[in-house]
């Protein structure tokens, strides 16, 4: 008896599963009487476990694409699928669940809650997920130890350096074991060395936990750790390169 094996719709020939897929995403803004087309039809597929960098100059639509992928902004037309679910079909409660459990966000400005300590900040998404206080305390402490902040559990953001704050933010992003991490310019407000540390940490978490990392960034240091780089220019995808395809010559990027 022969069995026909059909690959599941979401697996590629290499056997990788899709986690994010955009189809013809267009984003327009009305400025008075004119319409500004920021995204002009983006089609891309991101696979599980990848480390993706979205790169492009200011005004290229990089941030807008990032926001569309992350479910933060509705595209004017086109579809965004996160794990095969069309996010435009989700209601407010489902979207909130998605943000709480499936996606972890990292911001350029760290965005820690100033009135809470590092531990409480990391606990917050766990509380939103319905975890008990005791469980959340333990898990949060463990993640903070993993990012080398075990000795700073009870410090408030104002008592932490930029790099430390971003590490708390990373710990918070991983709080509910998400499938996707969305990082918007994570090294934007950090100096060279601190930025390198953060990028290394993100790559480690990506490899350790098999979490897909999607980062919108200007930072060329990010290129080294990326599996694929998506170059955006003028609202369109310019090209998508694998890390080994990127040639870095002195003073130049190809």
């Amino acid at each position: 008896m022969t069995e026909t094996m059909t690959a599941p719709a979401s697996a590629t020939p290499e056997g990788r599963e899709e986690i994010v897929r955009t189809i013809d995403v267009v984003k327009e803004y009305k400025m008075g009487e004119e319409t500004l087309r920021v995204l002009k039809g983006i089609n891309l597929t991101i696979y599980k476990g990848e480390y993706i960098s979205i790169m492009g100059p200011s005004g290229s639509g990089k941030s807008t694409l990032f926001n569309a992928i992350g479910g933060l902004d509705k595209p004017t037309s086109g579809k965004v699928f996160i794990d095969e679910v069309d996010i435009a079909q989700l209601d407010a409660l489902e979207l909130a669940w998605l943000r709480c459990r499936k996606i972890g966000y990292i911001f350029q400005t760290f965005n820690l809650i100033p009135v809470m300590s590092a531990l409480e900040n990391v606990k917050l998404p766990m509380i939103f997920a319905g975890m008990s206080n005791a469980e959340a305390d333990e898990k949060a402490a463990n993640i903070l130890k993993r990012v080398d902040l075990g000795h700073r559990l009870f410090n408030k953001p104002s008592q932490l350096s930029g790099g430390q704050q971003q590490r708390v933010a990373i710990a918070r992003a991983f709080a509910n074991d998400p499938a996707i991490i969305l990082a918007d310019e994570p090294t934007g407000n950090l100096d060279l060395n601190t930025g390198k540390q953060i990028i290394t940490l993100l790559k480690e978490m990506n490899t350790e936990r098999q979490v897909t990392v999607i980062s919108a960034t200007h930072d060329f240091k990010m290129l080294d750790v990326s599996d694929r780089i998506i170059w955006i220019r003028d609202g369109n995808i310019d090209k998508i390169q694998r890390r080994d395809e990127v040639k870095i010559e002195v003073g130049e990027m190809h």
Partner: protein
Amino acid sequence: MAAVQRQIQLPLSKALGIALASLRVRLGRSLLTLLTIIMAIAFLTNIWASRVFEPPMRAAKLAAQGLADVANIEAGGGTSRMVWLISLSLLVCTVGITNAMLMSVMERFREIGTMKCLGALDSFILKLFLIESFLLGLAGSLAGALLGQVVTIALLARNYHGHVFANLPWGSAWLILLASTAIGMTITALAALYPALKAAKMQPIAAMRVEV
């Protein structure tokens, strides 16, 4: 990967915890709102208490002097003028609270947006701000009512000396205290409604904004 589920509603106790922490840390800023409430309610209580406390004390004083309390003189102007003054002060207080709370919401746009990114529902943000204002309203109204009574008694003591405590209608005093507090909490709740709704409606993308 599990299918998308629906986010749960958080119990009130969680919102209360965060609200308390926020107030404690923002005590300086909350002080302005608090003072507004205290002043307005103290004013209300003072007017009210004076009109209720004074007649028995006045009667006692006149009796001690061998005179009958013949003329029932209204102290300090007509009733309607008093009502007008009190209503105005309560209105100013309400507007002031709304303004102060709106500023607070606008300042905290990044915080609210971030919480939404972590999975907070609109209703949670609403509860957060309503609880904060409820606590402020309670503290301010109680303090204002107490202050108002103390000031009233102090002022009456200047005129009626020894007759004050003997003739103070304690039952009415308690009633005025409770009623003034209730009025203060009501106007605070009404004033907080618009800012709290604005906060709840804020989109997560607010967390990404670069400028203030």
